[in-house]
């Protein structure tokens, strides 16, 4: 476990850079993580996805996968891949400050 500074705020992260505590997340932290993962600026669409991911994780107890995001956050799968290139499930979780979507092994 380690501490990293994002947007001037010190947060605890795991080995893969995911926030350990969703409560340490702020929009400033999100912007700085986004830059680190190659998204230079967060647009309204990004924010819609991120807000959905945070809300959904809080209410359901698990980070949403791409299909769930597309079903509820008002973006298409193609758009989601443009907004969060390569691995949207993982990138959304990282920038939204929620746990990495799980597989068992």
């Amino acid at each position, binding site marked *: 476990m380690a501490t990293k500074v994002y947007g001037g705020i010190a947060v605890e992260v795991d080995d893969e850079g995911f926030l350990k505590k969703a409560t340490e997340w702020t929009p400033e932290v999100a912007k700085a993580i986004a830059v680190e993962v190659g998204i230079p600026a967060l647009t309204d669409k990004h924010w819609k996805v991120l807000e959905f991911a945070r809300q959904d994780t809080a209410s359901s107890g698990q980070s949403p*996968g791409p299909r769930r995001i597309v*079903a509820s956050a008002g973006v298409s799968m193609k758009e989601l891949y443009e907004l969060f290139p390569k691995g949207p499930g993982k990138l959304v979780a990282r920038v939204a400050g929620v746990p990495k979507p*799980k*597989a*068992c092994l």
Partner: protein
Amino acid sequence: MKHLLILGAGTAGTMVANRMVRKLSLEEWDVTVVDPDTTHLYQPGLLFLPFGNHEESELVRARGTTLDDRVRWVQRPVLEIDGQARSVQLEGGDRLPFDLLVIASGSRIRPDLTEGLLGDAWQRSVFDFYTLDGAVKLRDALAKFRGGRVVINLVELPIKCPVAPLEFAFLADEFFKRRGIRDDVELTYVTPLDGAFTKPIASKRLGHLLQEKSVKVETEFAVGSVTDHEIVSFDERRVPFDLLVTIPTHSGAAFVERSGLGNELAFVPTDKHSLAAKGLENVFVVGDATDVPASKAGSVAHFEAETLIENLERAASGRELVSTFDGHANCFVETGNGKALLIDFNYDVEPLPGKYPLPGLGPFSLLEESKLNHQGKLAFRWIYWNGLLPGKPIPVPAQMSLAGKEQPAP
């Protein structure tokens, strides 16, 4: 008379029905399962069938023989649940009333949800092995295969038995070696995740297996469409194939969706510790049909059943529910050449190395290949028919234990 109604008589429904007739007073309660299918399929056998290691007849039994005589079996499909009226509508019109309801209708593959997957190449050069029909056709195709690119693609999570696609890759390596054509076959494992193994300790200990078996891995690949010779990701990457083994998207039963009870893939929102359906009284969910963040596996259904049975008894007598299910799963993972690994984990603890079930003694090794683990996997079929389904006590605790596991230094 009061009615306990169980929708689906697969692994979970059968086990629960057979145990509940011994728990409830049958003067007061009747126990009914609804399932249209006349046979019970041992699904773990589908992994081996494509390689010619099982006959179809070894994997199926007449459903009637798996159910206790005191369980009533209604052989019809469920059409819709009416939670308000506490009744279930069957296809063809009849209604069954319930006092307690268990949704145990499992998960099914949905190749129709991926563009082009059910095209001309379906069951010619594109196969699944998650259905008996698919596994048999894949066996015939593999027997004739002379060489080329074999792609194993996991479309999206969740799927049942999430390790099965990787096991398939390992067994395919062995199969082609045995046939003397391994050098003519390129094996590629394509996953939407960021690695074949995603948990830190497992990837450290098991990453070498893929290299040893020359399985190429393509990661973070989310399939947008499939043609007769390549799979194409949403971000326009392409992987060509001569033979595609697809593990399609899974969803819950159509009646779950029709009843307005499911999430985006018709899995039922379920309390992950008590197995009560969220927002519905006297309705429970077990096995693959739930949305809980545990693996969709028979072993999980078995551990869930312990909590569920306790809660059905409690609900029957108006007592408070327990929240004891911890997400426990244990799975043998075939690695080929007569060896397997074993993993044991829950909601909070990732798979760790060690011994199972007896600390220090095993006999099974966690996160490590052994011949004994493979024997364990094969023995499971006997245990399934003769122990698990009839509801006999199985000597492994329902909750995960850290005893015998090596924990990483903090």
